[in-house]
């Protein structure tokens, strides 16, 4: 485990402070109630861009900060605490795809914009409601792409999509601008009120320079990194859900006792704390593993994601239960945490998916 350096500690603290002060859960509530149909908060995104966070994993040569994946994880955790509706995670995943895709023209076209938050990116790699990136029916024939990607997170706001498609029988990745003719996006009203879209490609002419190098191997690496980011986001969400709940246990009275004095609740809180600490270790180690260029990143990604899914599931359920009736009301934030948690769990492989994957990776 690598200890944080001074700059990382500053970054973590400033992201935490910014989220708590400038992007509280109430900002998300307003966004949801605004009925604009926007699944992200443009003002918050503007601030995030000003602080340079979209550039954290973009190379300096392309205008980024090149500050490492662990650093990005610190920011994602901090923002997720208050459910900040930002496309930071997707943008970072897309930047990774382009950087690793070893494509000079795509790098020059997109990375500087991504680094400054001027372009938004999204991963369009699933064609089913359940995560299954190996199933690819989208196909490029004679230079034209047809097919459909489902439940693309940040798909409506995206300027560039990383799309998986079959080309000559192999899975290949492409960075496709959403302005291209033939792309039809259908916004979805999801439970978490965030930006999600179905995206249809109807004979979309594909510029050969859009193709990234690496094929299926690239896909695996990009998804692993996105999964680790998602685990960091879940960890931030769960950590805040837990802390909010513990605070409630200290102020709510029943039967003349603060309910936090009831030992059954104390032990359940202690269990949550234990799980959060165990998960934190996995998330941190997985982020470090990216920074260190570790080979074993598939396993670490599945370890982090499985732990994060289980802990987030546990904590969001307990958040509602321990708040009692008030947690069931829309007026309280608990529902937001629960809904966002389930969407994140479903996104890049749930706990069962990653248990299965862990077993396969370990050959049993």
């Amino acid at each position, binding site marked *: 485990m690598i200890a944080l350096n001074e700059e990382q500690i500053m970054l973590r603290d400033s992201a935490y402070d910014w989220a708590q002060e400038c992007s509280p859960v109430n900002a998300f509530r307003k966004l949801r109630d605004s009925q604009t149909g926007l699944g992200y908060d443009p003002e918050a995104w503007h601030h995030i861009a000003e602080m340079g966070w979209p550039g954290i994993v973009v190379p300096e040569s392309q205008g980024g900060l090149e500050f490492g994946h662990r650093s990005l994880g610190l920011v994602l955790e901090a923002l997720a605490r208050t459910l900040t509706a930002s496309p930071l995670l997707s943008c970072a995943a897309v930047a990774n795809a382009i950087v690793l895709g070893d494509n000079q023209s795509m790098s020059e076209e997109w990375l500087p914009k991504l680094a400054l938050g001027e372009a938004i990116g999204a991963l369009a790699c699933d064609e089913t409601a359940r995560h299954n990136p190996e199933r690819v029916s989208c196909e490029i024939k004679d230079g034209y792409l047809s097919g459909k990607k489902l439940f693309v997170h940040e798909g409506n706001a995206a300027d560039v999509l990383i799309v998986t498609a079959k080309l000559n029988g192999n899975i290949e990745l492409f960075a496709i601008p959403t302005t291209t003719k033939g792309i039809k996006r259908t916004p979805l009203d*999801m439970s978490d009120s965030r930006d999600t879209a179905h995206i249809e490609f109807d004979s979309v002419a594909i510029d050969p320079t859009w193709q990234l190098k690496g094929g299926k191997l690239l896909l695996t690496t990009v998804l692993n990194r996105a999964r680790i980011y998602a685990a960091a986001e879940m960890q931030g969400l769960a950590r805040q859900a837990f802390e909010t709940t513990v605070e409630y246990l200290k102020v709510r*009275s029943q*039967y003349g006792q603060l309910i936090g004095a009831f030992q059954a609740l104390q032990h359940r809180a202690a269990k949550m704390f234990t799980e959060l600490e165990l998960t934190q270790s996995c998330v941190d180690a997985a982020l470090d593993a990216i920074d260190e260029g570790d080979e074993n990143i598939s396993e670490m990604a599945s370890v982090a994601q499985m732990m994060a899914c289980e802990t987030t599931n546990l904590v969001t359920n307990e958040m509602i239960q321990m708040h009692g009736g008030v947690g*069931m009301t*829309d007026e309280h934030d608990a*529902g937001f945490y629960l809904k966002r948690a389930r969407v994140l769990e479903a996104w890049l492989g749930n706990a*069962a998916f990653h248990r299965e994957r862990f077993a396969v990776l370990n050959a049993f």
Partner: protein
Amino acid sequence: MEELSSRTEQAPVAEDLRLAIREWLSENFPPALAVPAARETETELVKQWRTAMGEKGWCMPTWPKQYGGGGFSKEEVRILNQELERIGAYNPVGTRETVFGETLKHYGTEEQKSYHLPKMVRGEFSWCQGFSEPGAGSDLAGLQMKAEETPEGYLLNGQKIWTSGATESNWCFCLVRTDTTRKHDGISFILVDMNTPGFEVRPIRLIDGSSPFCELFLTDVLVPKENILGEVNKGWEVAKFQLQVERTTVATSKKGHGSIPGPGIKDLACEHVGTDDAGRLVDADLRSRIASHLVKEKAFNLTFKRAAAGPAVASVLKNAGSDIRQTRAELSIEVLGHQGLGWSGDAFTEDELAINKSFLFGKSASIAAGSFEIQYNILSKRILGLPEMKSKV
């Protein structure tokens, strides 16, 4: 017991009653109401059916005729229910009235019973319950709504919460504090006309978007003294009776444990997750958890059948039931993936949207009507006889 009652069914008197009911129903039940959805809004047809059944006394078939009941024996009720079911008809008076009616019959003065019961039966007065308060949830007796005695009656001030059906009700029975110096012994049970000035009803929006409950805000609501049910400061006894009736009603009806819309979890999984050549779900981990869930559901249903009524059973069923319901909901959204996490729109079927909403609403199963924790407290203290904490000296 079974044998005896089936013999009675053959008896001529019962058969006469059955035919009489059948005839009356065929003349009076509006066939349009055989579709459950048609009953949801208060149409003329719905009112007409309620009035007809109410005047017949069949809404509360076991009640004495003088209070608007049918004066039926249990066996006769069974025949009535069979005949209702046969043609898709239904009893137009809800559980809330059925339950509160028992309390009113038990604790009401003759005047209260004569005035209220027939109106309840005919659906003129429909009732809601004002028990919980924001500061008094599991610890109901901690309630604070003030009832100040004045020469004109009691002046009520305070707030109630988690009242279901408040928007469709015109009367509310409330627990109020008539003595602030004692806890349980300072509570009275009072009947409040919701049209009294100062009585405000606000729906509460829940995390699934529905608003089945309301908050009640009472500001200087004046209630005649004769509207106290039972004795002043003895309201806790009445409340316990009411809750006991409610619990028994809920525990003996499977509805209390909720259901998930759409096909069963197994078919849902086979459809959305897929099966291998041997017909097994391809997600082996999920398959195992579904099997475990279905076994537990079977255990629950068998327990429901086996168990004699009583506090142990009620608590066991309440917790096992909410656990099973919530597990089924979690499994359902897991099976559907993103498709089970929609809020609205054409991209989702009605069943899919309902599954998500039901998942969200179902989180209340372990909170409402005696939380998970309360049930475990009941089991450990009352049933297992585990000791109370001693005060530290």
